[in-house]
């Protein structure tokens, strides 16, 4: 790992001012992704601004009835918070499906949102990667692409976003609060991550030197009945091949509201708008669930090693929705 300048900020404003005076600098959270990438020489910052001691470590109710989670709150703290467990169980489950106990104790919410892809070619300095080196080409498209995207990819990049936590945030319509040189602003979570298009090196809507300060969950009473399911190559401590976060509101057998998001299948946490369109107002039956899954995956494209994900995603969506609609859940 190359050495770097280290500084520690006491407030969000101080962190923003500090990073603005440094060149090629990054914010440092729990380090579980950034330190690893620096050791592999994929990230080579000249300076790090440590933001883990900012006063952004609270989980509080908002005036609108939602919950604000400070950017430096550790993943395990979010997963164990009573309000998260009761009101947004899929968020708690999603976090608990990610990484290991040790990593969940270290990783922050802000860092989880900012984590980079686990594409093998992105991690391999000797491989071509448009994300690392814009214009270089992509070795994943004709390479070993079992873990890669089936939705939202481009001819320049087929890497997936690896987060579980973010899939639940996408389904919940969360908001990201940021602070920066031009002051604070908010970004809708589903606008936060970018699709690769011709610029796979641009991954988020953050402007230069902006810092995530919190994630806000809106009030969503029906999310009390929500589920996160993750399909992976081993039972624990592995990234998702396919994951589904979903919540349903059913009244007299009809779905009044539906939220579905997918992980492991796209360059960003994938909100399943097409599936939701089919579900909303329709009877909560296996037939509807299958149609919703088909609608979402109509434009899916598989590559040499990952075509299985299309059927896997279809079945996982149907299965999670069926479980949520089971009569005993609604008694």
């Amino acid at each position, binding site marked *: *790992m*190359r*050495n*770097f*300048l*280290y*500084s520690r900020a006491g407030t969000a404003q101080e962190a923003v001012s*500090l990073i603005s*005076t*440094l060149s090629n600098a990054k914010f*440092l959270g729990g*380090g*579980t992704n950034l*330190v*690893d990438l*620096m*050791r*592999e020489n994929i990230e080579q910052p000249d*300076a*790090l601004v*440590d933001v*883990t001691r900012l006063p952004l470590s609270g989980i509080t109710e908002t005036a609108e009835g939602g919950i604000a989670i400070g950017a430096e709150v550790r993943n*395990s703290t979010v*997963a*164990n918070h009573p309000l998260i*467990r*009761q009101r947004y*169980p899929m968020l*708690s*489950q999603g976090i*608990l*499906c990610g*990484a*290991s*106990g*040790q*990593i969940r*104790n*270290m990783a922050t919410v802000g860092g989880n949102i900012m984590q980079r892809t686990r594409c093998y070619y992105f991690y391999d300095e000797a491989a071509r990667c448009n994300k690392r080196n814009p214009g270089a080409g992509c070795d994943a498209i004709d390479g070993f692409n079992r873990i890669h995207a089936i939705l939202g990819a481009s001819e320049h990049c087929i890497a997936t976003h690896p987060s579980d936590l973010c899939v639940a945030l996408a389904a919940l319509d969360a908001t990201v609060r940021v602070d920066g040189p031009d002051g604070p602003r908010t970004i809708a979570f589903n606008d936060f991550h970018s699709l690769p298009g011709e610029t796979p090196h641009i991954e988020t809507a953050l402007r230069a030197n902006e810092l995530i300060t919190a994630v806000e969950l809106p009030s969503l009473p029906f999310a*009390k009945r929500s589920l996160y399911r*993750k399909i992976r190559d081993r*039972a*624990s*401590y592995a990234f998702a091949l396919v994951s589904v976060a979903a919540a349903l509101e059913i009244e007299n057998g009809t779905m009044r509201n539906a939220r579905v998001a997918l992980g492991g299948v796209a360059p960003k946490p994938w909100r399943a708008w097409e599936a939701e369109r089919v579900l909303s107002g329709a009877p909560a039956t296996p037939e509807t669930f299958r149609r919703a899954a088909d609608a979402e995956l109509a434009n899916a494209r598989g590559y040499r090693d990952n075509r299985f994900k299309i059927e896997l995603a279809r079945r996982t969506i149907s299965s999670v929705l069926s479980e949520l609609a089971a009569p005993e859940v609604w008694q």
Partner: protein
Amino acid sequence: MDSGQIALEETAARTVHITLKVNGAEYHLEMEPRVSLLDALREYLHLTGSKKGCNQGACGACTVLCDDERVLSCLALAVQYEGVEITTIEGVAHDERLHPLQSAFVDQDGFQCGYCTPGQICSAIGMVREFQAGLPSAVTADVATEIHDLTEEEMSERMSGNLCRCGAYVGIRAAIREAFQSEVRR
């Protein structure tokens, strides 16, 4: 050196003076910020109980406790852990008396080569504390309700961050259960 560079040197440093609190003792150290907590423990403090397995957060051999929470010292920069109470495998025994989990590992054949053992033991101590704090896991059926029993499935899931290439998992689980009999039911 231009003025911008001077301003930069005032707010950030290429070497840092830090105080680490490890197993109850304080150490004043000077190091580059890129030094991991694992390397600080092993190379600066010569506490070689914490092991470097993968050095990329995949194996758990480097697990230590920071303010009683288990973390991976290979993915931690030492400079970030200033002021934190760090406990390594060298610090879990009381004087000459082994920690109950260390004794249980001996009783239950919780290891073969022993390389993963310090990480397994620190991890299990942290894991039981998390369970007592009510933290659910990925195999908990309903995260909205209290969890009362650390079943085999729960234990395996919660210990999945620690790999054992000898495959001593059966003994490891038995050792954790023996050592924490009273703690694993709530």
